[in-house]
């Protein structure tokens, strides 16, 4: 038994050391954002010599070049609306495919599965060209709507529904409910776990997407945070690590806090997505 205790303590020490390594880049980012420019370039110490808010003032004042608040707002709009749209569209479609015996059901299902195996990169550039031709670049439309074309959600919810007994729904139909009522009152509550999973996976995918938004947006005002940070890295802030880190703090902190707060759901969402 003593042997087991020492092992546990040893493992805890290893885990703590690894945690320090994992946290170091984040700690460095936060502390550097409070350093003066010369301090951030010359000091090998993590802690600032003197704490300053100058970097944040600089970044937030340069709003024509780097409208961070606007980018944060764009990211919120795009990820929230995009995720809701995907959930809405996919639940309706999966419900129709699993329950409503619609004409052409088998063919549509086959297409859904085939589409699942084709990587996104093949549609990216033509889709960009089509949006350019439609003069919809630099708008919210290409940043939100194309995510609803993904078939993963339809596939996941369809599979979930297929294994679910129909008794409750049939009882509801006998009581005189129509398809819409059955969907919202009977099906939706049972879909909770799979909707959480799909919601988390979709949210992360849209939030992290970089290549697609970089194709369809040019104007600073329309950029998402992910895209905006890339502009800063490639632009004038390149010479000022302290200001750069102040921007990344503003960019990462909201997501980081959301992540820690809803950690349980993220974990559940990701582990379930891997097993289906």
């Amino acid at each position: 038994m003593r042997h087991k205790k020492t092992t546990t303590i040893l493992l805890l020490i290893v885990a703590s050391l690894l945690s320090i390594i994992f946290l170091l880049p984040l700690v460095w980012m936060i502390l550097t954002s409070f350093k003066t420019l010369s301090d951030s370039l010359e000091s090998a110490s993590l802690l600032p010599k003197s704490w300053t808010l100058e970097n944040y003032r600089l970044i937030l004042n340069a709003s024509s070049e780097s409208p961070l608040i606007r980018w944060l707002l764009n990211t919120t709009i795009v990820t929230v609306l995009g995720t809701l749209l995907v959930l809405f569209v996919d639940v309706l479609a999966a419900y129709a495919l699993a329950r409503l015996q619609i004409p052409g059901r088998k063919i549509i299902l086959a297409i859904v599965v085939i589409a699942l195996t084709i990587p996104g990169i093949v549609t990216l550039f033509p889709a960009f060209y089509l949006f350019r031709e439609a003069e919809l670049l630099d708008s919210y439309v290409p940043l939100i709507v194309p995510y609803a074309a993904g078939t993963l959600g339809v596939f996941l919810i369809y599979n979930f529904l297929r294994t679910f007994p129909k008794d409750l729904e049939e009882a509801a139909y006998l009581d005189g409910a129509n398809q819409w009522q059955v969907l919202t009152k009977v099906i939706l509550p049972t879909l909770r776990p799979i909707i959480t999973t799909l919601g988390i996976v979709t949210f992360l995918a849209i939030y992290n997407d970089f290549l697609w938004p970089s194709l369809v947006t040019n104007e600073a005002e329309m950029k998402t945070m992910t895209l905006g940070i890339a502009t800063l890295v490639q632009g004038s802030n390149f010479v000022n690590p302290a200001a750069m880190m102040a921007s990344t703090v503003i960019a990462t902190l909201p997501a980081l806090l959301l992540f820690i707060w809803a950690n349980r759901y993220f974990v559940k969402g990701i582990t379930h997505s891997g097993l289906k």
Partner: protein
Amino acid sequence: MYLTRRSRWFGLLFLLPFLICFVLFWLLPLVYGIWMSLHDFRLSFGENGFVGLSNYRDLLFNETVHQRLFLATLTNTLWFMLYSVPLLVICSLLLALLIRHLPRRFKTFFRTIFFMSYSISVTAVSAIYLWLFATNGGFINRLLLDLHFINSPVNWTSDQPFAWVVIVIATVWWTVGFNMLLFLNALEEVDNTLYEAASLDGASPWQQFLRITLPTIRPITFFVLITTLIASFNLYGQTLLITRGGPEQSTTSLIMGINTTVFGQNQLGMGAAMALLMGFIMMIITGMQFFVSYMATKKEPVLAKSVTQKKTTSSATDITLKSDAEKERKIT
């Protein structure tokens, strides 16, 4: 029964929103992309004549600038996969094993820490690592200079092999937590009595790992391997921002190559062909997953039998029950 003919057509209404999005933003671009790849298609003024398969020939068989770019960036991406994928799979498994063996109340804490960096976008990750490893004024160089480990600054992001080192470190730090979660979930599902029975039978921890843990997590390991291969194949943000594809284009990834073709060289048709070839390679990788899991389900009955035979000999299960009871007593 309750589904009349009319209501079957009415059901199509439910499918309609998805169908519209799917056709407009997936099917149409897919078909259009294939069509583009068969034409001399310019980004600036559109279609410029049918060329058949000549874009593909130029990429695969003819010695052209496009072939050089395609093969060079494909090779770079494959090197990155070779460096990053084993690390991402092995490190995540080790982290998951570590967390599994921690006392229950510490598990969530460490799991959150190792997984936290996944919530940061690729561009912010790049910004952080770019400045941690900057040649002049970078924190790592400052630290190494002050500790006298080096005499002059290392060109982390502009000399090889350091450039790959930085890219791989950033990628591992960023995404290892994701794989870890998948492993952790699989590990927690392994029947604990198997370990207890094995240790009572005198199996060492290493033997337990080889004989119990590895066989049970094999399916998820394969899933992690394939998804990591695909993710690494999609390398873009890190090399665009941290190394800018350098030094001498040695970290220019395939997607960066396609981007250059489309936007730098105005060749949308050629870029579409490159993207289709890239997609084709990725489909082969995922095809491997389907093939292997199909073979596994065919073999499964045999495998499962041998596993149970090995681990649940009658005496071991009896003792396991007893040791469980003992454990409960200790807690109360």
